[in-house]
């Protein structure tokens, strides 16, 4: 279960104060697939960063599996990112100097796996998304769809409990976007909790519930299944 209680996030840009998230309260049950939609600057990405421990709330509390994230140290947050959370970004965010398989094995190595084991698991994961012929290519040598598939495999390879995806089809054409959507749909069957920030209605259509955000606030939730969120 992911729980947010009256979460605020304020950024200071020089003399300006940006209230990215304002008093957000949200519960995302285990194994559910949530889509977060809203206009640019509505606080969708900030919400993902807060849940994924990339950022800390200015006020309020966030719990992941009963663990209060606000009380974690820097190392504790890194540990959580390494073991419990997988990120998928719009810009793929693969390390340019590493090959596909090296990118995928990196989270395993950071989490403490031995190199041979990490390499074996990374290769197996890439085969599952039909990238066995591309695993030794660097990101620059891969297409956008291939890069995003590598990024999704990297997010999943450590078998994290939570997948956080920030507009994963935003940089992809329709065909490759559909491939990525298929991969995300499969997550539902694997019992993982997924929160996807998207403008893609197709992704929103497969979500268990959709959260609409505007100006850092949740303005509406639509529950599509019996596992839906509460408002």
């Amino acid at each position: 279960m992911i729980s947010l209680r009256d979460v605020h996030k304020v950024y200071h840009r020089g003399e300006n104060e940006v209230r990215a998230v304002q008093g957000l309260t949200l519960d995302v049950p285990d194994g559910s697939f949530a889509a977060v939609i809203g206009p640019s600057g509505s606080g969708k990405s900030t919400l993902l960063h807060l849940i994924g421990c990339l950022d800390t709330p200015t006020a309020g509390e966030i719990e992941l599996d009963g663990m209060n994230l606000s009380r974690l140290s820097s190392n504790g947050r890194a540990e959580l990112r390494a073991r419990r959370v997988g990120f998928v970004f719009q810009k793929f965010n693969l390390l340019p100097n590493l090959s596909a398989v090296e990118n995928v094995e990196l989270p395993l190595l950071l989490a403490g796996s031995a190199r041979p084991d990490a390499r074996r698991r990374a290769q197996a994961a890439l085969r599952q998304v039909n990238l066995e012929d591309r695993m030794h290519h660097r990101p620059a040598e891969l297409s956008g769809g291939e890069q995003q598939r590598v990024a999704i495999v990297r997010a999943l390879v450590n078998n994290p409990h939570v997948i956080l995806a920030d507009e994963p089809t935003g940089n992809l054409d329709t065909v490759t976007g559909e491939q990525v959507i298929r991969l995300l749909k499969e997550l539902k069957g694997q019992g993982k909790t997924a929160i996807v920030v998207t403008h893609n209605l197709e992704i929103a259509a497969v979500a268990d519930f959709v959260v609409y955000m505007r100006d850092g606030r949740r303005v509406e939730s639509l529950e599509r299944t019996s596992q839906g969120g509460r408002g």
Partner: protein
Amino acid sequence: MKFNLAALAWRDIQSRRARSWLTVLGVLIGVTAIVALISIGAGVENAVLKQYADIGYDVILLTPRVGISRPAAALTQESAKPTKAVAETSATESVDMQTQAIDATALIPSESVDPEFLRARVPAIVDVGQIGTRVLWVTSTDVSGFTRVSAPSQGFLRKFSGLLGGYEIVQGRDLDPAANDEVVLGARIAANMGVEAGASIKIEGTPFTVVGVLAPYKGSRGAAAISGDAGEALGAAQTEALATSVGGGGAEIIRALTNTDDAVFVPYEQAQVMWTNRSMSTMVAVRVRQGVSVVDTVEQINAVLNAQGVSMTPISTQAIADQVQRTLGMVKTVLASIAAIALVVGAVGMMNTMYTSVLERTRSIGILKSIGAKDRQVLGLFLIDSGLMGLIGGILGLGVGTGLSFVGTSLLAGLMGVTSFSPVFTPGLFIGVVGFSLLLGCLAGAWPAWHAARLDPVEALAAE
């Protein structure tokens, strides 16, 4: 930690290959300079100290205490060379020059001590010898001019020939102490005067027979060395240091001793008879009995000299060697400091590279953090990155510096006209230089690495 930071750091270094190599080059140059200067400096020190070791640390030199008011030109090698130009000067001019030289040498103090008297008073002394020196007007058939006339006693030649660099007869024979008309010539003066063994020359108008010619001294250019192979490494600077450390008239005598190529040798015993009315600058050399303190013996000699009112200063070769070592140590420190500045400049270059790298890789740092890299792992990544560049620069610099040392000593040896001079490398130098380069690399990368580790992951991911 299973995560191999070094492998990832190596990838990063390779990804910016040109800049990495330029950064490594900065360290390489600094390390090369340090290795070359230290090893060459150590080589010079070793050679000089070996020279004193060969002479023996049990030798004490007694030199006139009062300095010479010398006409510098008359005592330099170049002016001491008899030349045809001088030979062509008019008789009047020659007489004037002779008068000038006699006046100059007349200032040399006449105080000296009878070596045998000294040996009788100081039981610790086992060997004694003395050598006098004067600058006199020398004439051959074609050439005339001023040159240095050295007068070693038989005791000196037997027991202290090591002090005379290159005293090796290659033509004719050695001096007969009983003969009063024999000379041995240094190689260069013999060549300049165009004479060989058997020829006649005149000193102050008195005829002498050249009975022998010395081998050219290998180290002779500007200033020659004191003794043998070890002395070959002794350049002008060391000779000067040695001369200075002896001080006063002793300095002149040491210069005279180390200039066998341009010297005319006559037996001391005959010189005393020939030039009774003119002063010779005399140095006495004594050797201390084995196991007896040289320092104590110096004090005893001093006491005897003072009691006799003899104006001479005893100084041991050990004291001279210590002084030379101190001087060389200072020179080495200054040179190493200059080289260290080059290394620091290299380190600043590395810091610049690392900081630029952090800026360029900000997004990658954000990615690493998003997939679970801890701050200390990011810190370690950049420290290893810069440390690796420092290490590579250090190892390559060590190699290049070693090569440069041999080239440098070869060039220096050529300039100094010596052969047996080689750089000295110690395990401490190797380990120290490589370790220091690694440390310097880490230090140069410390601030950029800290900056990288502290980056906010969200801001880092937002970087373009």
